[in-house]
């Protein structure tokens, strides 16, 4: 395993400029002060109730995501490169999805194989030929970025369905401001708290009709959903209604909300509900979470769903491997952010290579998420690898493989002081009908275990505040 790039300390032991002030501060603060602040942070998280549940865990209790107090710092120039690349990526994602559901030029040109679209469980035939308001599909994207050296940021994953985690980005900043005001006076950190305004402006810009002030609502599956906290948090931040399916109804292809003052028309629904459950008249007929008739209102052009239905066709890990070609095809540009090299196990020569190099590779399920069902070759023993080999051979099309990247590390508070831990970054990209908005930073996830590369919260990963320096 190659030596990982540390974002604070260079290989020669010197401190990289962006981290100089922080490093001096860390060295000067006594450990007991840090311990005290850590307890304080945990207390605040518990009090505001920011927890999550892990599906499938027995007697699963609501857990706190470990919060790490050492901020991650990104310079203004690094962010400029990143945000340009993200904007390009999301633009291409939107054009691709629109094309797949309308003219299919990308398939006719042979850039993406037909069966990867038509046999894809996330492809929604029901969306075929349907125009969506403003021709935008992915209004809220969470694109996972990893870094391997001072200059290289890779896109690891495009999350184009309902990416979550933005509440942690906002809460982490609030807590840091409360715990370490002195640190903020020493740095010029770009604010993130305008995310709420940006999101509301984006959602309003997406309304299907002009003319009246658009009414926006957030649709949640309910309190049992693992991200319910975030749904209620966002409704509160935006000052919009948080609704469940039963609070809405459709009459003559228009969506209404039941209110104490009678029905109120809804123009934009930020839905945090999977496609399958949206409308029992079109998808799963046993869904109690959706709104009967919603899809016909959508088809009639009377409501905007964010993200659009069927965006999953752009974000599975097999489609991911075609993203550089997709960007070239629609934009005629080279991708600004590279992809991690990816072997598609559906292709026999790729599969052969992967089977020969399993101990070095990371193998993932095409539709997997949350760090489940994957093999990290270098961190697995022989038995685990052999077990995975059998799964892979039985259903190659279900897997992709990537080299084990030496993800960058950031200083992180651990039992014995501060030590480097691997991190990734999920910035949130908002695409409105007027413009693209990206709040500087995003959610940094950190693998709290020494040497671990799995940052998912369901696997014990934590989060950090992410600072983009303004100067």
């Amino acid at each position: 395993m190659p030596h990982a790039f540390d974002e604070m300390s260079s290989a020669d032991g010197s401190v990289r400029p962006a981290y100089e002030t922080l490093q001096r501060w860390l060295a000067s603060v006594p450990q007991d002060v840090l311990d005290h602040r850590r307890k304080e942070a945990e207390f605040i998280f518990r009090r505001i109730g920011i927890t999550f549940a892990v599906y499938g865990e027995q007697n699963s209790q609501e857990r706190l995501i470990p919060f790490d107090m050492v901020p991650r710092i990104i310079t203004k120039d690094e962010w400029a490169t990143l945000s340009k690349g993200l904007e390009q990526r999301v633009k291409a994602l939107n054009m691709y999805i629109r094309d797949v559901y309308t003219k299919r030029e990308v398939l006719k040109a042979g850039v993406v194989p037909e069966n990867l679209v038509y046999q894809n469980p996330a492809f929604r035939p029901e969306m075929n030929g349907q125009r969506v308001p403003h021709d935008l599909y992915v209004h809220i994207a969470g694109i996972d970025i990893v870094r391997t050296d001072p200059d290289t940021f890779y896109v690891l994953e495009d999350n184009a369905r309902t990416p979550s985690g933005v509440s942690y980005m906002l809460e982490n900043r609030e807590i840091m401001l409360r715990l370490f005001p002195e640190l903020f006076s020493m740095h010029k950190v770009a604010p993130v708290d305008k995310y709420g305004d940006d999101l509301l402006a984006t959602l309003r810009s997406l309304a299907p009709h002009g003319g009246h002030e658009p009414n926006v609502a957030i649709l949640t599956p309910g309190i049992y959903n693992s991200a319910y906290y975030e749904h209620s948090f966002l409704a509160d931040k935006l000052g919009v209604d948080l609704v469940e399916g039963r609070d809405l109804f459709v009459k003559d292809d228009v969506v209404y909300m039941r209110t104490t003052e009678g029905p109120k028309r809804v123009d934009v629904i930020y839905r945090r509900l999977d496609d399958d459950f949206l409308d029992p008249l079109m998808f799963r007929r046993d869904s109690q979470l959706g709104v009967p008739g919603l899809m016909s209102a959508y088809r009639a052009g009377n409501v905007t769903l964010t993200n659009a239905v069927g965006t999953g066709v752009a974000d599975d890990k097999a489609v991911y491997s075609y993203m550089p070609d997709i960007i070239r095809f629609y934009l005629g540009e080279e991708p600004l952010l590279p992809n991690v090299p990816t072997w598609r196990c559906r292709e026999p020569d790729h599969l052969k290579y992967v089977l020969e190099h399993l101990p070095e590779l990371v193998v993932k399920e095409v539709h997997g998420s949350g760090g489940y069902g994957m093999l990290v070759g270098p961190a697995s023993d022989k038995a685990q690898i052999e077990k995975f080999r059998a799964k892979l051979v039985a259903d190659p099309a279900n897997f992709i493989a990537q080299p084990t990247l030496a993800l960058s590390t950031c200083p992180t508070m651990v039992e014995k002081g501060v030590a480097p831990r691997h991190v990734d970054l999920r910035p949130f990209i908002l695409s409105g009908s007027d413009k693209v908005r990206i709040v500087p930073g995003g959610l940094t996830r950190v693998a709290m275990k020494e040497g671990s590369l799995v940052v998912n919260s369901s696997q014990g990963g934590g989060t950090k505040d992410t600072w983009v320096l303004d100067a």
Partner: protein
Amino acid sequence: MRIRIRHEITQRFEPGSRNMAVTVRLTPRSHEGQFILRWALDLNSDCRLAAQEDAFGNLCHTFSVDGPTDHLSVVAEGEVETQDTTGIMHGTVERFPPSLFLRQTDLTEATPAVVAFAESVKLTEDDPLGQLHALMVALHDKVEEQDGPALGGPLTANAALQAGKACSGGIAHLFTAAARHLGLPARHISGYLAPDAPEDGENAGVGTARHWAEAYAPKFGWISFDAGRNLCGTEHYVRLAVALDAMGVAPLRSTGLEVEEAVSALDSRAPQKVAQAQSQVQS
């Protein structure tokens, strides 16, 4: 042949229900083998019907029943002129390339048993049309058609195969599941089957709602296969809707209690009497 069709659906709701959203897929389209002479929908409730085309090109209507009510009744009635095209479909509305129809669904899931069945009829030479006919014959031998409603069950491809007898919808699922497994695009069709009126004017039995399959063979295009009757479509068939499976062609979708259907499809030359219609209940 001129076929007179009446299709009545009654959807029950909890008493006192309000604001019930409904989608019906009950309006056939013309193609070279069938011409819609007249067609009308009638509802027992005052609604504003909005016409939509679904993703597969089927004609749909959406509406809301204000209520309070405990049921909705929809009657589709019309007359269709059909011609025998030996099962070859021309002039149908196509919204997808054939390769989409390789997509399996929950109802057509290719379980190991379905895969084994499909493989057992695999031809050695590359002849899609021959392959499809072989599949139809094998399926006809293996699974007997049950009297009763078109979706009376067993409904999934696997259940139809395991039971050895199935409704026309289940047989269509098994045919499409096996064809798709063999790499041949196949799709699910809903419609009506009308018997000939006998020369002596006696009632020859009423026609019924029926499901069958269409499969794609290069050079020929889409061809209809009714494995339950071991034949390709004739002038006795009226095609209503197309999709990946029976869920996609559902004539009515709403949320409520059970649904009852009564269908008659008669040769227009038959005596004008209201026939005992086929009826089915779904929960």
